[in-house]
């Protein structure tokens, strides 16, 4: 991570200014913002450092900063996309911001998915609800250089049809011949014209039964989904070392100082947010 030290600005808490160039409502209360850098130097720094998996602190002056992943892939660095659910003080302010408004961004921080190591392998993406954004960053990073990877399977579930995010992209993946997309909603969450699966992600995953052979799995979702999906993956014969996930915790500094994102001895903001299932299993479950 020496690249940060060389390029880090004097004041590590000073954010970059970003302009909102597009916004899109994904699901009730869930919004995507497309952001562009205003300062070319900051943009260059971002281009030099950003890799899929890293996160940032998005903020509005007067309200504060909030942490979420960079949802756009490392293959598209002209802009930043972020997707968030409006729930707290900062996300409410971000949701109220309009195209043309300026917001702040600090990052990219944290570690990344080792995508080069995925070359030549089959990929299995499993995601639930609002946790598709981090997975989506990996998905596009791989689809943008599709030839380097084997079979691509995406299993995505949400509580209801309305709660599915990136609906337009789901359609796009659905139509692609080189992507297997399995969509599901929780029982009771289906609409009358729902043509896909109904059931919880782990169950649907077991039905789809992707082969663990030469396969890397990336899972992201609420803690309870991760817990049961890991069990299902084990049943299917996946090795924990080939399963990646990203953790999120409340963060304020993003740079390993403020002390709140620790899970056991791990600083999620610096040693994460990307971990293998092996690493996660070593963390104290009570702290997750």
């Amino acid at each position, binding site marked *: 991570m020496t690249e940060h030290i060389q390029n880090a600005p004097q004041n*590590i808490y000073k954010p970059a200014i970003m302009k909102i160039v597009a916004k899109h409502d994904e699901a009730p209360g869930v919004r995507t913002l497309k952001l562009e850098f205003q300062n070319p130097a900051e943009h260059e720094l971002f281009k030099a450092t950003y890799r899929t998996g890293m996160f940032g602190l998005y903020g509005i002056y007067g309200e504060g900063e909030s942490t979420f992943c960079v949802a756009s892939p490392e293959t598209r660095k002209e802009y930043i996309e972020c997707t968030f659910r409006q729930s707290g003080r900062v996300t409410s302010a971000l949701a109220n911001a309009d195209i043309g408004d300026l917001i702040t961004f600090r990052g990219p921080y944290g570690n990344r998915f080792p995508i080069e190591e995925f070359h030549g392998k089959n990929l299995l993406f499993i995601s639930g609800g609002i946790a598709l954004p981090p997975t989506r960053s990996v998905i596009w990073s791989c689809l943008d250089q599709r030839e380097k990877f084997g079979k691509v399977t995406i299993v995505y579930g949400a509580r209801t049809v309305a709660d599915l995010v990136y609906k337009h992209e789901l359609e796009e993946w659905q139509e692609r011949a080189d992507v297997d997309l399995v969509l599901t909603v929780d029982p009771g969450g289906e609409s009358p014209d729902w043509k896909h699966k109904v059931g919880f992600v782990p169950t649907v995953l077991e039905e789809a039964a992707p082969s663990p052979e030469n396969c890397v799995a990336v899972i992201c979702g609420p803690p309870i989904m991760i817990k049961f999906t890991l069990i299902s993956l084990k049943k299917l014969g996946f090795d924990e070392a080939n399963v990646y996930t990203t953790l999120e915790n409340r963060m304020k500094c993003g740079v390993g*100082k403020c*002390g*709140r994102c620790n899970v056991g001895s791990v600083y999620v903001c610096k040693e994460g947010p990307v971990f293998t299932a092996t690493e996660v299993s070593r963390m*104290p479950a009570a702290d997750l």
Partner: protein
Amino acid sequence: MTKILFTDKLHNCVEKWQSAGLTVIGPVQKANSSSYATVKNAGELDFNMVLPDRSIKELFFPQTEPILHYSIKKQEINTRESLPPNEPRIIFGARACDASGLAIDDPLFGWDYKDEYWFQRRNESVIVTIACTKADDFCMCTSLTLAPDSTKGSDVLLRPLENNKGWQVEELTERGREAFAKIADFLQESSEPAAPLAVVEEKFDLDSCVAWLKNPENFDSKFWKEISMRCIGCASCTFLCPTCHCFDIQDEGDTYSGIRRKNWDSCSFSLFTMHTSGHNPRSTQSARWRQRIMHKFNYFPGKFSVNSCSGCGRCSRQCPVDMGITETLQEISKLSQ
């Protein structure tokens, strides 16, 4: 023969340092509470207390400080960074535990990303530590491989002479030598012996405590709940601690102008880790107390090879319900035998 600074010359020294542009800071007792504060003259310094109520941390990492000022006009955001001014200063009369505390936090504020707020102040400060000749029931530096005359984090170590006559001077760093060169005229060579150091009894066996903490089985031990049952969840221990470094970043102001500030925060507050969703990874007070102890004696040393505790004992001394690191580690010592 050693270099001696006699007490009656301290007045001259303070003046000399001040005229050389140094801000002089030291232990001060004021309105029923003591802290390290800026003084106008040597008379304000109080060397009788065991140690100030508030730790030296706040001189480097204040309870609240502005990071930047912002103002917003239509589609334009202006920010003004707020870094501490370049103001050399000398902290005269630090305690060994406090000075060590600063050295303990240096790697944390410097790993990968450098926190300029901390380091600018660190680089401008000469720390003159006075070895302790007094200790109270809560002092525990010796239990943490430190001592009343530890030199860690100090630029100069002073050893008190008998009857408060003065101090033997031991310059430790270049910065310390420079500061004391300025007052060379007021130093004397003498063979006056140093007063005996404070006797701080060892309160627990650190190694066995650390071994117990490192054992994953003990993470879920019912011990944590028992020991922290009476914890009321205030932040007095963490805020007074010279090594606790957690903070919050908060905006104060409105959508037109305001200040982004860095404020102390504490792992003992339930809101510290609370997610917006309502999920709280450390949802009970016992989980929060466990985190504090684990962080200090297991996680932090795992990262930076040093315990995040210098044994000042403030957490126990000031706890409203008489808890603290001492009691917890004493109990762990018992368990691990």
